[in-house]
């Protein structure tokens, strides 16, 4: 009798696994169970929050003062750039208008706290404290102050799951800042990303900054992603092996920002008479 029950549950578990993994058909079940886990999750955050709060409480006047000085200096430097940016932006808008280019999409966003990371050593995912009730949708990009962190992959009513750019299933179209060459980063699963399908003679050097190219219509163009840390060229392979380190504090637990892209960039119009073109 227990053996029958055992096989019943095994069959059930395998069926759930297949439905979830192959067909992604039971998101509602996951959402339902997640609602049950929320109280425990919140409770488990209490010790961490308590430690953080007490640390903030014992923050001394001296460190606050040095911090203010540092921030003032930083603000001065930033103000210099900011002045130029407003001027450059208007100039850029004019130039774009002249060139009849579509204006860059307006990007808004909302800040969120990282609640916790998934316990699973296989996945690079974190949970944040904003969900579908706050207008978070699946697919939105997530950044921190230094660059791209990842993408919303699942939303619950009051929290959502962010797949980090270092996850194996995460790919981001990027552009090398120095040369303007386009490529795609793939997560390696160990806190780094890899540039795949770059020819072994590609012009990439260590220290190159990668920023989003905006080609996928998900990540807006111009956000920094990673810095190249390792370039291995082996003539035995057609492609160079290029590894880059994310610039953002991807594996840290900090404040993040979910970008809200107001208007989706339209997909390129299929060219009807492509075969008649002579310029390629």
């Amino acid at each position, binding site marked *: 009798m*227990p053996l029958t*029950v*055992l096989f019943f*549950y*095994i069959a*059930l*578990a*395998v*069926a*759930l*696994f297949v*439905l*979830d*993994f192959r067909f992604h058909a*039971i998101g509602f*079940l*996951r959402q339902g*169970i*997640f609602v*049950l*886990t929320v109280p*425990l*999750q919140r*409770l*488990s955050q209490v*010790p*961490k929050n308590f430690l953080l709060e007490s640390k903030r409480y014992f923050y001394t006047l001296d460190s606050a003062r040095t911090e203010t000085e540092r921030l003032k200096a930083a603000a001065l430097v930033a103000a210099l750039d900011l002045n130029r940016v407003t001027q450059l932006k208007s100039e850029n808008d004019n130039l774009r208008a002249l060139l009849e280019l579509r204006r860059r999409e307006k990007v808004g966003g909302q800040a969120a706290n990282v609640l*916790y*990371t*998934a*316990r*699973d*050593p*296989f*996945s690079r*995912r974190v*949970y944040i404290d904003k969900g579908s009730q706050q207008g978070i949708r699946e697919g939105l990009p997530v950044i921190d102050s230094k660059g791209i962190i990842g993408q919303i992959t*699942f939303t619950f009513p009051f929290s959502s*799951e962010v797949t980090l750019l270092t996850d*194996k299933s995460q790919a981001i179209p990027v552009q090398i800042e120095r040369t303007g060459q386009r490529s795609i980063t793939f997560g390696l*699963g160990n806190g780094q990303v890899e540039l795949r399908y770059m020819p072994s003679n590609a012009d990439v050097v260590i220290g190159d900054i990668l920023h989003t190219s905006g080609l996928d219509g998900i990540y807006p163009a111009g956000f920094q992603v990673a810095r190249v840390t390792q370039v291995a060229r082996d003539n035995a392979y057609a492609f160079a092996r290029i590894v880059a380190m994310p610039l953002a504090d991807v594996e840290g637990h900090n404040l993040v920002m979910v970008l809200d892209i107001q208007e989706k960039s339209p997909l390129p119009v299929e060219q009807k008479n492509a075969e008649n073109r002579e310029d390629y």
Partner: protein
Amino acid sequence: MQTPNHQSNRILRPVRPWFIVLSILIALLLNMLPPRQWLFMPDWVLLTLCFWSIREGQKIGMGVAFCLGLFMDVADSAALGQHALAYVIASYTASAFSKRILWFSLPLQALHVFPIFLATSALQIFIQLVAGKDFPGFAQFLPSFVAAALWPLLSFFLLLPQYQPEFRDETRPI
């Protein structure tokens, strides 16, 4: 203190159902605390589940194991069914061997449950490999060792409420 097993003549009080629920809730909470990132952190839910499956196989069985597994799947954002399958098999094995295990002292009991923990992590890693992930390294088996080492301590604490005497002597100093 004499270990309450089938060899000893110590008689335990019946377990209170709310204590089982409480212990499982605490185990779930422990599984969700930030230290779960540590490599050697045991799966507390599995540990508690195995304990109650051995001690109270009539109350805690595969149904509870399945529900707890689904809960952990969602909490860990693993594929649904990964923990559920592992917990159900662990619970079945534990209760199937309970009649044998309960004849031994606590350290020997730990040696008996150790293979269950080991097989459970192996099963979970296997499911992940099926799902197309990489092998995470043998360090993933470390929590099984820790869990087995914690077994005597856990048994002691989870049996504490049942050590109380049937008739409490109010005039007793302690």
